[in-house]
């Protein structure tokens, strides 16, 4: 192959041979016309699709009538910033004393609190405060018993219909994964909890509805729940409305993403290892190719006179 190439290079019309040789070259390639056209086409297609998606997404955001939740300066913002566990603990208190009256958290168990916001003894004590329906017993009857670590948080209503009947037809959503389930995440939760205002002129609310600009549609079935000093924290933190909202948002963030801290811890390890591996790969590639890259192929034509 090499022989045939080099011999055809000597001919005047050597464009074809250069093309073929180009494929073997390790130097920076000059692109052929077809390659350039393809790259341009691919770039324009991908760029156009991205612009279209962005425009569609923006128009969807612009078309709704609710106010977008402002970004808060959460202490867990940042690549390797963990959740504030003292805040999770306070947020659990807020959930238990305020939210749990209407909202279930049926996928979070007392055992999940152990090593996150409570010691094992404390989590057991929390569980024992709750009455859990268990059974059937020897007589085939269901009975109530104090909770155990393995029990999930008890729900305030036995089913969705009961919840709706008690709340003017509005269903208080389960809060287990609410931060992941709402656009804006914990920013939305915080904005919603602190964003209650009087309805603007022209907005008519039905009985049992309240106005919150962050809620899609504005009319929300939940009354403002958090006020200054609505409850007391066991650690003595001043219980302002925004503090309550912030803590319960962090608690719900943890409930939605219990792997949050482990994930960020693993990011350091994964990014570190892959950086080392990338550097090694680069070095070994250069090392192995150095012989090929620095070789020189010379062609000595035989003189006809010889």
């Amino acid at each position, binding site marked *: 192959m090499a022989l045939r190439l080099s011999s055809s290079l000597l001919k005047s019309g050597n464009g074809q041979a250069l093309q073929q040789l180009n494929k073997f070259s390790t130097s920076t390639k000059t692109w052929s016309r077809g390659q350039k056209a393809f790259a341009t086409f691919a770039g324009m297609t991908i760029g156009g699709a991205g612009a279209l998606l962005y425009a569609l997404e923006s128009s969807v955001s612009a078309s709704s009538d609710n106010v977008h939740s402002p970004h808060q300066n959460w202490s867990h913002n940042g690549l*390797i910033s963990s959740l504030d566990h003292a805040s999770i603990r306070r947020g659990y208190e807020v959930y238990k004393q305020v939210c749990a009256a209407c909202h279930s958290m049926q996928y979070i168990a007392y055992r999940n609190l152990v090593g996150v916001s409570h010691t094992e003894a404390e989590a057991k004590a929390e569980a024992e405060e709750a009455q859990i329906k268990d059974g059937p017993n020897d007589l085939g009857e269901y009975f109530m018993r104090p909770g155990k670590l393995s029990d999930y948080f008890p729900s305030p209503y036995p089913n969705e219909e009961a919840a709706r009947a008690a709340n003017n037809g509005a269903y208080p959503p389960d809060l287990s994964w609410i931060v992941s389930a709402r656009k804006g995440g914990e920013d939305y939760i915080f904005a919603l909890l602190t964003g209650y205002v009087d309805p603007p002129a022209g907005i008519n609310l039905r009985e049992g509805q309240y106005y919150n600009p962050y809620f899609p549609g504005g009319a929300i079935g939940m009354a403002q729940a958090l006020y200054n000093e609505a409850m007391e924290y066991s650690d003595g933190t001043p219980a302002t409305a925004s503090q309550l909202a912030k803590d319960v948002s962090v608690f719900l963030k943890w409930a939605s993403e219990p792997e949050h801290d482990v994930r*960020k811890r693993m990011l350091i390890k994964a990014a570190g290892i892959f950086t080392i591996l990338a550097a090694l790969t680069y070095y070994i590639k250069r090392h192995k190719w150095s012989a090929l890259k620095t070789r020189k192929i010379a062609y000595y034509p035989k003189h006809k006179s010889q």
Partner: protein
Amino acid sequence: MKAIYNIFMKRTSTYAVAIMGSVFFFERGFDVFADTLFESTNKGKLWKDIRANYES
């Protein structure tokens, strides 16, 4: 360098042992480094920093 080669890398047997041994120590060291970085960045926020307040 030559000593390292002669002791560890010349024979496959010692080479394999050297790789396994160094992987063990590297992995432990890297883990400790990463955890220290994470825990110093988030000092005061982690459960291990506040658990003393609640354990009797």
